[in-house]
């Protein structure tokens, strides 16, 4: 994620204050997010459902 992309996303998220005061933290946060997303290996089954997000066995 380059600086221009970070700036667009930060503005869209309403983070103008953080952009001014903590640009390094924003860059580090964007890097973390990009790495985690890039590392995920999507499932082969495109129709797999994500819900319910949390179902603890048959107890719920």
């Amino acid at each position, binding site marked *: 994620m380059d600086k221009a992309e970070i700036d667009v996303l930060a503005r869209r998220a309403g983070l103008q204050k953080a952009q001014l005061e903590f640009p390094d933290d924003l860059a580090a946060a964007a890097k973390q*997010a990009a790495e985690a997303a890039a590392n995920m290996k999507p499932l082969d089954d495109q129709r797999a459902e994500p819900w319910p997000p949390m179902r603890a066995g048959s107890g719920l």
Partner: protein
Amino acid sequence: MAADARRKRPVTDLHFLSATQAAAAIAARTLSPVELMQALLQRIWRLDPRLNVFIQLDGEAALAAARAAEAEIMAGRPRGPLHGVPVGIKDIIDVAGLPTTCHSKILRGNIAKADAVCVAKLRQAGAIVLGKLSTHEFAIGGPSFDLPWPPARNPWNRDHHPGGSSSGSGAGVAAGLFPMALGSDTGGSVRNPASCCGIVGLKPTYGLVSRRGVFPLSFTLDHVGPMTRTVADNALMLEAIAGHDPLDPGSAAGVPGRYAARLDRGVRGLRVGFVRHFHETDQPADPAVTAALEQVARCLQEEGADLRDVTLPALGAFRDVNRIILQSEAWAIHAPWLRERPGDYGQLARRRLLAGAFMAAGDYVEAQRLRTSMIARVEEALRDVDVLLCASSMDPACRIDNPADIERTYPRQARVPFNVTGHPAIAMMAGLSANGLPLSVQFVGRYFDEALLFQVARAWEKATGTDGKHPPIE
């Protein structure tokens, strides 16, 4: 309380009495809850300036509650299985009339109006709240030195971190400041301090303990759990706090069990699945940790368990799914403050919480789909074995003043898989490193089968006496 009654009480130092021992002695009128509270308060006044366990100590109220408990017991009105036993509460959990700061400037001065459900349940069982305990900021940013309160220290060696985020809970229980504490666990935050401080920490099944009144970090990953010095205490505490809460959307409808019922049944005939790849190939552990895990495995085999190897998805896959879900959900909670008051967070929390602003909706959905498949993989493994054995931390706690080492070692852990899947997991001491720091092991069970988990953990504790090992701090 009469002098002849006091003579009959257990000879253990009062500060290292377990909750079970203290409750039994108080019920038998051989120990005054006032005497116990005074002994702990004196120890807190002496040691806490070095350990930074408390955000706020509520000593006067705790002493008054101890006097009330003594009067009730002397009048033959026992309140419950923890009557008169002190407990510490992580400072993201509401205690009526006390601050809930989440160890952050953001919530400085925020006074809780009511007890969290888990605190109310502890009080119903007779426990006495001692105060609010240090945490990583909002249970995500720490250990940090740029917050209004200093970070907790490890009582085994004050130069080292105590784990987190339930850092005050872990350090205080280990140091004998109180016999039990509440923690919360979203990516391992009960089990990390339990591992670093050599105590017992349980992340129960998702939904077993109500989260109402606990400041959220990640709705679908948050768990509240007991932290104690013994396995029996952990079971006792879970019995007090478990149960359905119709006002917690994640609460499970099942009836809580009798968790201490099978404690001393041993492991003969139980099938234990050893997840070796976590610490051998996924994140190669410190050799002392590897040796300790092998010793646990051998010990359980000698006690009659049937040990077999089990393969789960790689740790890195669990970690990425946990991170995307956690940071996306945390962003939803923190966005207003991150927009208006970014400077009121410490740097670590700010960086981690801001990451959620850069997560795409598609990434979150993909992570939830992967999570469903991971749940299926762990469920499949637990059809062939009764319990899993694996690493908790891959390293002993590093120095607290070395950010690079903390950054390197904190993610080297095998706890996040079971936040992702919601299975119950318990971390406890597996030995000591050459420089005297706790090493750890983790056991993982089937949904709602905490009783079996306690049974296996107790077998290990009994065989090696981990409950009798305390940090050398006086």
